Each structure stands twice: as structure tokens, then as C-alpha cells.
């Protein structure tokens, strides 16, 4: 930990070497950009970029009852996972509110690998530990693992030399020199891409190896700034901003990742009620008119001259060239084409509700 009280990832020395601009994020000192957010954003949309995601947490779960137990605490259905397969899922409180969103991989029949948000590692682990039942072993492996995301249309070409690559949402183990690396085909950018997990003491070696593999496509190291604009264009929610204990996956538009057919899981009852009665508010994608001031989280949202919401996320979109954002809107307003206004420093700019996602990669 640095003197500032912030955690540093094993790749901190690499960020310093690359002259990254560092900022605090979720208790971590992380690069916000190296060469510039727009530049890095475009590298991922057009070629390939690499992100340090070592701040994210890894929790391993073992044991003969691991599947049944985890299925009681997560919204998606683990029983559908083959070995080597992963799924996006949510951990809810008893009221159906979101504690965290995560990816769970089935590494072996009774062995699960959970990748959780940086700011939620302790809370998730305590929550899971506090609800432990039956023959399960729970390990917080967040200090052991470093991780990087390699994202962009060229990412699969970059990894071609290391062997056969996993399909979307699958994970495989590789040996790079003496280092065991888990590589999953997942991401948070809206592009094809991979997330790699490896021991923290090999972090610099792996990072530099990937940078070298990406040379032919001018791979760029990318910071949290581009990570945020990329995920926002793809309309992936950010926990702590778009997701919170006061919002359910149904309201966030994540019902696809909730298996209400499962017998029981934490938060199921309130979700079932929402599924039956409909939700009052839904997380909507918003696009501002050209030449508007960039929207930011918490800016007021107006419809028919009344404030109806505030943005949970907002940014200039480098791909669209306009401001974009997300907000929970009443069902009356939560339809594409709805006219809105976003207030920026006392001035209102026209905006429209759009279909999600705001950016979809070309097929």
C-alpha cells in the first residue's frame, strides 16, 4: 500500500515507467490515462488496447456443495455452466438490491472462480463468508492474482501465438514460460477481447509480453478513463454508479442474467414481484444533441420541464462525438425517442432516450 493509503497493483512500476496519469479509484491508485483517453478509446475500437485490471478481486470457491450454495447467492444459473465456461451474474441483498455484479467461471466441476469489483472485494467476501453453508471452501485470492484486459478487434490475432483461444465467455489455462495464466474471452468494452489472470509476482513480465505481442497492431496501454467511455458506449453498468443496493437487476435491465426459474436465491422474491408487476423505473441510455456540454454523473434530467431523474453515469462519447449517459427513468419516459433535457451548470441541453447499447461492434 502506498503512503496515500491507496492500494497499488503489481503493475504500478510499469505505469510509472509509461508516465501514466494516476488517480484514486475504489481505494486503488490506478492509471486514468497514458497517452490520452480518446486515443486509447480509439485504439480499443479499431485495433487493440491493454488495461491493468489487477485491482479487481478474485474469489475461489471449492467443495461438493459449491454449486448449490453459490446458486443460492447469485442470480444467474451456475448449473448451466460447462467446465471452462463463465457467466455474468449478480449478488443481491434480501431486498433484491445489487451488492455486486461479477463473472463466475467453472474451472472444474466443483471449483469456481469469481471476478468481483475492486471496491467490493471485502464486502463480497464477508457476505459470502457470512452465508456459508455446507461443504464449501472460500478463498479470497485477490492478493495472489494480477490481471489485465486485452481488448479490441485485433486481440485474437495478438494471442494467436499462444495456442487455441477460448470462445466467448470461456476460460482456459495457458503456460507462458514458467507462468500459469488463465485467459478468459470476456471484457467491459463492447469489443472482442480477453481478460488474463496470473500470479502478481509475474505481472510485469506478462504485461510486457502482451505489449510485445501487440506491437504489430500498435497496442496501447489504456487507463480507467477509456475503460469508462468504452463501457458506457456499450451500456455496461458500473457498480457504485449505475448499480446500487437500492436498485434491482430488473430495474437495471439485467433480467437476462437472473434465472427466476431457480428454486430460491437471495433476493428472488422482490424480483419475482417486479417481473410480474413490472418495474417503476428502468435504467435508460441517453444521448445528448451535438455540441452539448458533456454530461456527468448526478446531472439533473428533465422531461416536460420537470426534473425526473439524475444521471448515474455520463461522459462525452468518443465514438459518437456527443454526450451520453445512463439514468433511471420512470416507465412513462423509459422508451426510445423520449425527449429529455440534461442540466449542465444551470443550462439545459436537449437529449433523447436511445435503445441500448449506444455502441455495438460491427459484425
Amino acid at each position: 500500500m502506498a503512503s496515500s493509503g491507496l492500494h497499488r497493483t503489481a503493475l504500478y512500476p510499469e505505469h510509472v515507467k509509461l508516465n501514466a496519469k494516476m488517480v484514486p479509484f475504489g481505494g486503488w491508485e490506478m492509471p486514468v490515462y497514458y497517452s490520452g483517453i480518446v486515443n486509447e478509446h480509439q485504439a480499443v475500437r479499431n485495433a487493440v488496447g491493454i488495461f491493468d485490471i489487477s485491482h479487481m478481486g478474485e474469489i475461489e470457491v471449492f467443495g461438493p456443495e459449491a454449486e448449490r450454495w453459490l446458486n443460492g447467492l447469485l442470480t444467474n444459473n451456475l448449473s448451466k455452466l460447462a467446465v471452462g465456461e463463465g457467466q455474468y451474474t449478480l449478488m443481491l441483498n434480501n431486498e433484491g438490491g445489487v451488492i455486486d455484479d461479477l463473472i463466475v467461471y467453472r474451472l472444474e466441476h466443483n471449483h469456481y472462480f469469481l471476478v468481483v469489483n475492486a471496491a467490493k472485494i471485502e464486502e463480497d467476501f464477508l457476505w459470502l463468508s457470512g452465508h456459508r453453508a455446507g461443504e464449501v471452501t472460500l478463498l479470497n485470492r485477490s492478493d495472489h492474482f494480477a490481471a489485465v484486459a486485452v481488448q479490441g478487434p485485433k486481440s485474437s490475432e495478438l494471442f494467436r501465438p499462444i495456442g487455441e483461444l477460448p470462445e466467448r465467455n470461456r476460460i482456459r489455462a495457458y503456460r507462458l514460460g514458467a507462468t500459469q495464466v488463465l485467459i478468459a474471452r470476456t471484457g467491459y468494452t463492447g469489443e472482442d477481447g480477453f481478460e488474463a489472470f496470473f500470479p502478481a509476482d509475474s505481472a510485469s513480465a506478462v504485461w510486457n509480453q502482451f505489449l510485445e505481442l501487440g506491437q504489430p497492431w500498435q497496442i496501447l496501454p489504456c487507463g480507467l478513463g477509456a475503460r469508462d467511455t468504452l463501457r458506457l458506449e456499450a451500456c455496461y453498468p458500473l457498480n457504485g454508479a449505475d448499480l446500487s443496493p437500492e436498485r434491482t437487476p430488473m430495474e437495471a435491465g439485467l433480467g437476462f442474467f437472473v434465472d427466476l426459474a431457480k428454486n430460491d436465491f437471495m433476493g428472488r422474491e422482490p424480483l419475482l414481484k417486479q417481473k410480474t408487476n413490472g418495474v417503476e423505473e428502468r435504467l435508460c441510455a441517453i444521448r445528448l444533441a451535438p455540441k452539448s456540454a458533456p454530461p456527468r454523473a448526478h446531472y439533473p434530467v428533465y422531461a416536460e420541464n420537470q426534473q425526473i431523474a439524475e444521471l448515474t453515469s455520463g461522459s462525452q462519447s468518443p465514438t459518437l462525438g456527443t454526450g451520453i449517459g445512463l439514468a433511471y427513468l420512470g416507465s412513462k419516459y423509459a422508451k426510445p425517442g423520449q425527449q429529455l433535457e440534461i442540466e449542465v451548470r444551470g443550462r439545459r441541453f436537449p437529449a433523447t432516450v436511445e435503445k441500448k447499447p449506444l455502441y455495438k461492434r460491427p459484425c
Partner: protein
Amino acid sequence: MLIPDDLKYADTHEWIRLDGGVGTVGITDHAQAELTDIVYVEVPAIGAKLEQKQTAAVVESVKAASDIYAPMGGEVVEVNKELEANPALVNTDPYGAGWLFKLKLSNQEELTGLKDPNAYRAQIGE
């Protein structure tokens, strides 16, 4: 970083170019490089009367909005309209086409509180 010799600088990274009683204001090369890609500039209203160090404009990058302060007091007599269509001029030509606004200065003595190029160079550690 470019730090032209004929300008005066504020601690908050604005520059001012004096021409008679009128000062042209912008942000420094160092400031634009720190802010990175500028996507929006909000200039003051013409006729607005600003005190020295008062918030005068807002420059927004993809990541954040940054306040720009009046390096000297005065009345806003002209603003750079080009920035509405092309805010990136602040990045590409911070001391030229990327200027922000012009002030009819109310007190020339405020100039003594500003930095000369060497003092500003020292401030940003160059």
C-alpha cells in the same frame, strides 16, 4: 512545453496577452496537455464583469470539467466563437487559435501579481 516570452501567467495555468487596455486570455500548453482531449468550452457572456481570480470559463475534457479563472479583472469584450465548433483548438494551438476570451482590463496593477515565463516554468517544474 511551450511558454511564450511575451505573456504573463497565473498560478492556475491561464495566460494573458496585453494589447493596450485589452487582455487576451487562454490556458497554457501545460494545462491543455494535463487536461488532454478538450471536447467542450464554455466561454463567459460578453459584457460580464469579472474580478481577478473569478471563475470565467469551463473547459471540459472527456473525463472532467475544469474551471478557468480570470487572470486579471475586467469586462468581457470578445469571446472565441470558433471553440463552439472546434474545442480541440485549445489543445492544438493554446496560445493562438485556442484563445478563450478578451477582457477590457479594470486595473493594470493586477499584472504585478502574475508570473513571468521563468517563474511559471519553475512552477510547473521545467
